[in-house]
């Protein structure tokens, strides 16, 4: 398998999105054994494992070092702040931040950048203007894509959606809600129920089953990765295959498998692994004194459907099977 050296991205400047190619720094272009601090909300699901894989792979490729801290969940903002404090105190060279709250990390981002530590906003979004770069695909865009896909599939026929976007209060989830509803505006697609809740699989499964009891006109079940996984199970259990279709607005391996097996229709992918590589590349470029192509960039999302499932590269989306989560990597560069 070829090492990734470049991939298509979208550069974002305000409202303007431009497609481009992002070329990764080669190992030789990185001159120092930079030590990067990586902060994740948690590392308990395949999404963040894929992110870890992407970051770690890029760190290895460039011979730099990293340490990863995870806060244990989206309700643990103060834990994440403590970890960020620790990173600043330990004088890491750069920070990649999968923020729990777009606002909440502001002061610490400022403290870090004031201390000369570049901070790359990764996956979740940070509002603080002093942040050094954003490596992310917004969940607004992803859910918008899903919405448009469903509008397309509905072909102008009235279509009813049950929507399960994950916990309320999580910024990414709220973005997804907005993206999806913007996409289906002025179409015959309507949301019958938006049921928000914890991202536990069993919790989602119960909510979806209850929704199937309550709303019998549902044509689609759409939700965050784990909800889509649960939806596929629920549809199968209720023998509704063919009547109710499933789509996600982000992808994890079970959803991918469901798409391949026909149990789910579609999900956009944000190429989580590439996003990780992009984040590392951004922070290294800043540390090398380079200017970024754009302050905000993310891999160009792509729809994974039964047709495209063969063509998208799994290693750009997911950690490979048998991957061991990496928390710290020593530099191989001198």
């Amino acid at each position: 398998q070829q090492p990734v050296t470049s991939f298509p991205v979208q550069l974002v400047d305000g409202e303007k999105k431009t497609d481009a190619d992002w070329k990764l720094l080669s190992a030789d272009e990185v001159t120092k054994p930079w030590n990067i601090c990586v902060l994740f909300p948690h590392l308990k699901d395949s999404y963040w494992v894929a992110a870890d894989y992407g970051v770690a792979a890029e760190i290895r490729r460039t011979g730099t070092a990293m340490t990863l801290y995870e806060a244990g969940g989206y309700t643990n903002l103060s834990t994440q702040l403590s970890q960020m404090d620790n990173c600043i105190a330990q004088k890491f060279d750069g920070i990649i931040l999968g923020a729990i709250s777009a606002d909440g990390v502001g002061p610490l981002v400022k403290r870090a950048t004031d201390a000369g530590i570049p901070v790359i906003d990764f996956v979740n979004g940070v509002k603080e203007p002093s942040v050094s770069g954003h490596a992310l695909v917004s969940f607004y865009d992803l859910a918008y894509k899903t919405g448009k896909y469903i509008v397309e599939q509905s072909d102008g026929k009235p279509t009813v959606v049950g929507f399960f976007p994950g916990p309320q209060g999580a910024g990414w989830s709220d973005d997804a809600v907005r993206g999806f509803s913007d996409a289906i505006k002025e179409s015959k697609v309507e949301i019958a129920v938006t049921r928000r809740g914890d991202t536990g699989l069993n919790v989602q499964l119960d909510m979806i089953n209850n929704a199937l009891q309550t709303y019998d006109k549902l044509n689609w079940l759409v939700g965050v990765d784990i909800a889509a996984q649960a939806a596929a199970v629920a549809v199968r259990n209720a023998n509704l295959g063919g009547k109710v279709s499933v789509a996600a607005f982000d992808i994890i391996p079970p959803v991918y498998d469901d798409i391949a097996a026909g149990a789910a229709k579609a999900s956009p992918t944000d190429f989580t692994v590439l996003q990780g590589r992009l984040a590392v590349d951004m922070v290294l470029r800043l540390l090398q004194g380079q200017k970024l192509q754009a302050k905000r960039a993310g891999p160009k999302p792509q729809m994974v459907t039964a047709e495209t499932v063969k063509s998208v590269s799994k290693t750009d989306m997911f950690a490979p099977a048998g991957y061991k989560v990496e928390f710290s990597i020593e530099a191989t560069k001198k």
Partner: protein
Amino acid sequence: MTLIRSQAGIKPSAGANAVSTLLTFGALPIVLAICIVVFQLGNPRFLSSANLLNILQQGVFLMLIAFGQMLVLLAGGFDLSVGSVVALTSIISAQVMVAVSLAFPEAPGFAIGAGFLATILVGLVCGLVNGLGVAVLKVNAFIVTLATASIFRGVTLVISQGLQVSGLPRDFVYGIGSGFFLGLPVSFFFALPALLAIFLLVRQMRFGRYIYAIGSNIRSAMVAGVQINRYLIACYMLCATITAFAGWLLTARVSSGEPLLGGEFPLNSIAAAVIGGCSLRGGEGSPTGVFMGVVFITVLANGMDLLRIGSNYQMIVLGLVLVGAVVLDRYRLTDATKR
């Protein structure tokens, strides 16, 4: 405290007497009945057979775990690790089943059997760890099970690396997980014997008498010759094993090994048991009560969804009903002390 504070007052009339007979089962059935009426009025689908099956399907897992939790509560303990045990079982049993079914692809029964064995083993080991911590190290059950919850979850993540395990035997997923038998979910038939066994254990067997005694007054149980450590450890092992069993059934239902399964169970199972009359101070409660508690919680969650109550308001309603149910149920106890 009852001695002094019992509200005793008025001499009961004949009517009050009838009420008191009714209340030997607590107010829970009444509250439940009211809820059912409200839900049915709000959505006629509520009592449809499809939805009843749905409730049954959803409640089975909590029922198993709450029964396990009850054993521990009766003995004066507490098990916060049930969620982690579910996740650990899910991952380990799934990995075992995948491995075995790869080795013997033509005999899915073999893989399922191996997965079941692994499940029981995980349950026994986890329970033993909890039990040793509580009985031998004599550390507070809250701390022990909080600690083991963290440990088991850590182990789950180390083993699974946070990734789901897919590729479970088809018979497992479609037979046990989403199969029906005589019109009822297969998992129900799996759970039934386990629940019945616990019921008998608690109500009809020496074991039950001993754990009530331990939970009520551990020192007096010791003086009465009960082998405290043995029974305490047994309680934790039974609790973890039945929880693991529930985790295994849940794995079948969700059709993959999930490292994050079951986070809702610790608090839910304790809440169900307490609503059903278990005391956190031990020695109080019954399987019938816990049964009612689980039914109550499950029906409530389902009914609110069917009433199309938004999730934020559901949280508020859930809290109010939780307290309300216990307040009403207290009349049973007050009544008992009055009798």
